[in-house]
């Protein structure tokens, strides 16, 4: 009995040292990672709606979207929001920019880990450029009655992207309409 307690104690010491080292390294890297993510998000937003000034808006369900305004006239140029849904093997996250009429300006896949060679091709412009100019009701893959041509061999991924964007766009639109046309 005593022997096993001793073994457990030795293991505890090893684990304690390891967690101490990891905690220290985490304090070094965590701020860099957080800052990099924030910077990436800002860069992506500005790429979607160039030349706009972004204001954070909190929706009633707690999610956040951004209002893009013209820096001079303060006129609304559009909105950007994140849409995400489960694809084939990962959660696919998309950042979407829409104009005030909720026609898509551009989309950017910000995070995915789909099958290389198939679903992972969703980041290529030949797929994402199809979304440009689409209205909410067109945001379906062609098998579901929309206009988006899915990636060959990756209908699930393509469908998940189209559906997640459509759902989120409707949510954001309703939110804005409720807010008295703000």
């Amino acid at each position, binding site marked *: 009995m005593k022997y096993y307690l001793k073994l457990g104690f*030795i293991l505890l010491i090893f684990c304690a040292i390891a967690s101490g080292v*990891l905690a220290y390294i985490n304090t070094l890297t965590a701020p860099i990672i957080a800052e990099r993510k924030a910077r990436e998000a800002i860069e992506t937003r500005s790429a979607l709606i160039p030349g706009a000034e972004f204001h954070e808006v909190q929706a009633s369900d707690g999610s956040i979207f951004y209002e893009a305004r013209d820096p001079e006239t303060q006129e609304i140029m559009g909105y950007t929001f994140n849409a995400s849904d489960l694809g084939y093997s990962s959660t696919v996250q998309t950042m979407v920019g829409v104009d005030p009429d909720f026609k898509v300006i551009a989309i950017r896949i910000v995070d995915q880990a789909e099958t*290389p*060679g198939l679903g992972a091709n969703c980041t290529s412009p030949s797929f994402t450029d199809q979304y440009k100019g689409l209205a909410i009701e067109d945001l379906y893959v062609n098998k579901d009655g929309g206009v988006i041509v899915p990636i060959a061999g990756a209908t699930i991924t393509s469908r998940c992207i189209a559906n997640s964007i459509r759902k989120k766009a409707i949510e954001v639109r309703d939110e804005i309409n409720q807010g008295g046309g703000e």
Partner: protein
Amino acid sequence: MKFTKELTKGFVKDNPIFVLVLGLCPTLAVTTSVINGLGMGLAATFVLMCSNTIVSMIKNITPPKIRIPIYIVVIASFVTIVDMVMAAYLPALHKSLGLFIPLIVVNCIILGRAEAFASKNNVLMSIADGIGMGLGFTLSLVVIATVREILGAGTWLGMRVTPLSYDPMLIAILAPGAFITLGFLMALINMIKEKK
């Protein structure tokens, strides 16, 4: 000299993938492109080198009964360090390797070398073994990834190397392609070894 021998044995003679056949899970999974193979290989080399060093240093105070959990703790710590540092400084590579970084923990090359080599040899030799095995692993990943990326995507390290008329064989990049490539390369290496 013994040091150089330990350093170079991983390249061909005791190559971890083609000869020892260890660590096949990450091998099959990440070799879809050369850059992924290279990143995975170097990350694993770093972990292998560090864990071999520590395991060799603590071999006299490690009770034999709980050596495996202790090795795992050591290995997991280094993998977590690699994961965090990579996320901070090499975000693009970190993104494409994704899930496979934490999985270095269960890469049997690393536990295998800790158990079979580092726990019985001195620190210097263990470092040599770690670097050698790691580079051998990296080399194998790059070779497999080269075949798969060229056949499956028509590119090498992201640069187009095949004529535009070449229609990439998608299967090379999917899981079956990994098995087929590995099988052929293993046969080739066995053939060369037997001729010697």
